[in-house]
């Protein structure tokens, strides 16, 4: 969405964020993931009052577990906090009775919100039957089977220990479906080689929906003073579950794998590093009907839902979408095998000299990491000023000194793309700090579209000459 251009005042259409997920209605697709923010009635009440459309109650078990202290570790990145978050906390540490009573209270007071209840018990048929009945009797709209927790519970044969074995997944889903009256959603672990295989097993077991991803196996760091892993428990650590903005690309890939698998075709609730409305839209474009959020709420609180709702609504207005079903899954089919991509499509970078601030980041990125296709030209200050129509912005006078921002030692570096050798890798445009300064321009190659798969066939048939390697390197 372009921030510079607000939607026209006369065209402020209503958009409908409400969704229906396996027959369960929710005022919007923004749900809280089964995690610390959904630990209690108090928290979920605050969340629904703040505007969240649904929640997955933190995983129930028959007996409360015991947690350790401390529990979380974070990855900061160059001045920003919590790019990634890792935890070694387990499932609910409250009694089943208390949880069930509070679930009933929430459903009584928020009948129009979606309330799934996450479950994880010993891999025994009657134990699963029992917890399913209790959760549904308390008023759960749906069940989420936690086959994903990578730490702690997996050592006891639960969580990821189930979700990493398609046969176990299928078996337990079947047990649950024997008694469940509400939709059953299976939460998948990313700690597998082929997430779709587990998704198919869930489907075969009778699952009604898939949610993913659970957290990723991780060691978040090591304390350089004490030599203990983070988070530390009396000087020791354990691998934990990684989440937060850093994991989003991994989650998007797995969501698209599930969405594009013809053997699955189930509603998806997307999870993994959603901070901003754009993240949520991306999950939905790749096939999620609802999204679940945890880390951003743990960082900033429930209030972030206001920005999520507003951002998605305005984007929908701009794109003329009236309901989320207008765009859910719209981009999923655009994810293909590499071998389906067109070898004859070409883009090259272009630098807008008027916008360039002369930092040289594009140049050094291209020179050292890419394809040596950016020219650096030291332009004498006076010549630079003459070239620049906005030079009054660039020239600064102070006392007896006059100088140019971005200049030094009498010159300003000017950068241009050598489009003959540019391979269109995007890297310069990714590192450029100035908006729209480096753009990737499609170049007509005059050639028919040809994927690598087609190329192999044509080569075998002798119908095309081999594509020559780049000559400049």
């Amino acid at each position, binding site marked *: 969405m372009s921030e510079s251009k607000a939607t026209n005042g006369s065209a402020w259409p209503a958009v409908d964020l409400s969704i229906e997920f396996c027959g369960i209605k929710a005022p919007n697709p923004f749900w809280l993931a089964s995690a610390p923010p959904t630990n209690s009635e108090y928290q979920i009440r605050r969340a629904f009052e703040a505007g969240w459309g649904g929640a997955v109650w933190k995983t129930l078990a028959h007996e409360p577990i015991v947690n350790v202290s401390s529990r979380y570790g974070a990855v900061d990145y*160059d*001045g*920003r906090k919590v790019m990634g978050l890792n935890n070694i906390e387990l499932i609910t540490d409250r009694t089943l009775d208390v949880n069930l009573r509070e679930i009933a209270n929430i459903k009584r007071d928020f009948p129009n919100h979606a309330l799934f209840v996450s479950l994880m018990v010993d891999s025994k048929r009657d134990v699963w039957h029992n917890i399913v009945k209790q959760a549904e009797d308390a008023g759960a709209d749906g069940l989420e089977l936690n086959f994903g927790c990578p730490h702690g519970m997996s050592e006891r044969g639960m969580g990821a220990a189930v979700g990493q074995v398609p046969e176990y997944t299928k078996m337990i889903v079947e047990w649950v479906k024997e008694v469940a009256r509400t939709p059953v959603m299976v939460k998948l672990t990313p700690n597998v080689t082929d997430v779709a295989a587990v998704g198919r097993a869930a489907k075969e077991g009778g699952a009604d929906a898939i949610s993913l991803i659970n957290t990723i196996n991780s060691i978040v760091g090591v304390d350089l003073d004490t030599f203990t892993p983070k988070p530390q428990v009396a000087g020791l650590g354990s691998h934990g579950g990684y989440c937060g903005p850093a994991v989003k690309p991994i989650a998007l890939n797995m969501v698209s794998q599930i969405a594009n698998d013809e053997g699955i075709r189930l509603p998806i609730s997307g999870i993994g590093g959603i901070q901003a409305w754009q993240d949520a839209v991306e999950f939905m474009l790749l096939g999620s009907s609802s999204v679940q959020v945890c880390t951003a709420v743990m960082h900033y609180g429930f209030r972030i839902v206001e920005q999520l709702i507003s951002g998605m609504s305005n984007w929908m207005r701009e794109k003329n979408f009236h309901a989320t079903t207008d765009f859910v899954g719209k981009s999923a089919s655009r994810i293909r095998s590499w071998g389906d991509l067109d070898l004859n499509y070409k883009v090259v970078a272009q630098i807008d000299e008027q916008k360039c*601030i*002369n*930092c*040289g*980041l594009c*140049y*050094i990125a291209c020179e050292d990491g890419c394809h040596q296709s950016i020219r*650096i030209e030291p332009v004498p200050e006076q010549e630079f000023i003459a070239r620049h129509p906005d030079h009054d*912005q*660039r020239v*600064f*006078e*102070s*006392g*007896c*000194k006059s*100088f*140019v*921002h*971005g*200049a*030094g*030692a009498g*010159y*300003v*570096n000017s950068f241009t793309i050598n489009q003959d050798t540019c391979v269109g890798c995007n890297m310069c445009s990714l590192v450029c*700090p*100035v908006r729209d300064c480096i753009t990737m321009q499609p170049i007509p190659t005059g050639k028919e579209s040809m994927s690598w798969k087609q190329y192999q066939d044509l080569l075998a048939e002798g119908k095309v000459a081999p594509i020559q390697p780049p000559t400049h390197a």
Partner: protein
Amino acid sequence: MSDPNSRLSIEQIDRNFAEIHPPLTPDEALTESARCLYCFDAPCVRSCPTAIDIPGFIRHIMHRNPVGAAKTILDANIFGGSCARICPTEVLCEGACVDNTMLKQPVQIGRLQRFACDTAEPVSSSFYKAGESTGKRVAIIGAGPCGLTCAHELRKRGHAVSVFESREVAGGLNSLGIARYKLTTEFALSEVARVSEIGIDLHLEHAVDGAELAGMLADYDAVLLAVGLGKTASLNVPGENLDGVWESLDFIFQTHTLPLNQCKIGQNVLVIGGGNTAMDAANAAKMLGAQRVTIAYRRDAESMPAFKHEYELTQKEGIQFAWNAAPASIVERNGKAAGVLFEKTRSVGEGRRGKLEVVEGESFTLEADMVIKALGQDVLLDFLQSVPGLKLDDKGRIAVQPETHATSVAKLFAGGDCQAGAGEEVVIAVQSGKQSAAGIHALLQG
């Protein structure tokens, strides 16, 4: 002069002299360091006379390695701590910063540099050791930033160095001549001590004359002249020697050598000049408790050589300005200065180079019980002319070969303010000291 009853409390004066760029906290430094784009062939580095690897040291700070940051800074500029405080960064590194273009706000390079140097202070004196002795001996006249930098560089290369300083403290203008709200005396002296730790044979209150210099040239393997400049230039008007007329440097010196509440200050202070030193003196006068401070400059506001940020500081302090005011005489009352008679001027032609004309019949008097002359310093012409064969330029500064800083006299080098083409900033003097050391080292290596 000062009326004891009207003096500010010492607490108030101390508050007035609080540093204008206070240190960054570690969190501020981390946040600020993350703003740096880490430019390639960075304009800030090219705009630093000592070419400090600025993106490099800022990245060290961001990655919580302030010691690495300080080492990067001090490798290029052993006076990095004071340059961080006093450099006119607005017209050097920060003026060049590309964030001026993108965000209209540069990275605060000076304050980050100070953060690194301050944080690493407990270990930074151990960064440098004297090199293995070469048996060569160098004499340096003047213990200002140029002389001490040269001494430090030569010690790293193993040469023995003796430094002769006429004043009672080393550091030159860095210790005594910088506005105290920019650089505290304590810090300047501690920095000199750290630089000297490498093993410099320092002789204070030892003025060198032409005869002694001749002896040194025979005695040492090389000699560096880093004597700086002399007295504040004269107004050449009647009454200039009256009680109550001050030289700007003497006025600033006292803020470093006396307790602030014992510094001499007038009620009504008139500063003559339009350069950065005039701004410094005027601000200090106000901070010391003068009720009214006026800067009189012979040209108009646009022609004033003081930097914009220095002028802005005077506006914050409530300094008044009298433009196009050329001093004609000091007004005397009871044997003391009581004001200045000015002639109104106008400029014929453009800017600072325009010819000044007196506007007849429009002279005026500004009352003052303290008049501070801030007209820049004269060269030490008598001394320099007493050195046989020493070639000076038309302004009386020592001509040198730019690469080596060698003068026209064999074995004699020159750097800092006394050298032809020198700039006014401490950071330029430091670079001059580095270049002189390289030139001397090349000679000593034969």
